[in-house]
């Protein structure tokens, strides 16, 4: 293995160890990523739920309209 790549891999492993153990400033880093995940995922879930409800209501309203048209 090229020594430069080996060094980079060692750096990555040591970075991973230290950030997972929340040394230094992990108490600020993880909550930041946590709140970003919470808000962005929450907005997606909310938007998809509203879309699903609106689609279901629209389907019902269109079915009702078609039934009324057939009757007339």
């Amino acid at each position, binding site marked *: 293995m090229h020594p430069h790549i080996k060094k980079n891999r060692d750096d990555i492993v040591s970075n991973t160890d230290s950030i997972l153990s929340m040394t230094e400033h992990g108490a600020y880093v993880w909550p930041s*990523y946590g709140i970003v995940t919470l808000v962005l995922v929450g907005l997606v879930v909310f938007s998809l739920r509203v879309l699903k409800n609106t689609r279901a209501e629209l389907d019902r309203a269109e079915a009702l309209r078609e039934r009324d048209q057939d009757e007339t």
Partner: protein
Amino acid sequence: MLHRFANPTRFLRLSRRVEPWALGLMLICMVSGLYFALFASPVDYQQGHTVRIMYIHVPAAWMALFCYTAMAAASAVSLIWKHGVADVAAKATAPIGAAFTFLALVTGSLWGKPMWGTWWVWDARLTSVLVLFFLYLGYMALRSAFDDPARGAKSAAILSLVGFVNVPIIKFSVDWWNTLHQPASVMRMSGPTIHGDMLLPLFLMAGAFQLYYFWLVLVRMREALMAQRLRALRQRQAAA
């Protein structure tokens, strides 16, 4: 070009084709961006691991400004050309922009505490971003404050255009006033002052946030157009 997509049916057809690509690309950028941001980027020699907050704070702040600009532009198109899809785009953008502004404020605060020794200061940059957040909330509140959706949309569009004056204030606040917030270090005439190893996760996360907006705004616009059609159907049924 603009008027081609004024037709909701044409817009919906195109949107359904684009959405899966935007979602797929967003997930690729997000996963690779998070990997580089959290594990494969160097620790800053002064800030330590807190530099990793930059990879979400800065893209969130960029998106806060981008979304407001997009919302104001869509509002202008809607007011001038009575472009229904543009109005729907402005409406769909507001909550996403508010979410990014909130995230920029919160992550900035979480970054500020270990670096500045305080969660918050009333300096020009932080205060003007807080004003931006209130502008988003005001836009959404004003839209829903009217019984007539058309009047609500018009009032909110005017508010968003008036509030646009805050966007250049935010951008140049760090140059015009003495602020605790640092000046621009990426979008500078003389080039970024950040090392390439840190620029990679920053740009990947910025791309992911941009694609997130693009995908979600299409989803929300699809919902808003369906809701419009539902309202029209119900009015017709009530009139019959």
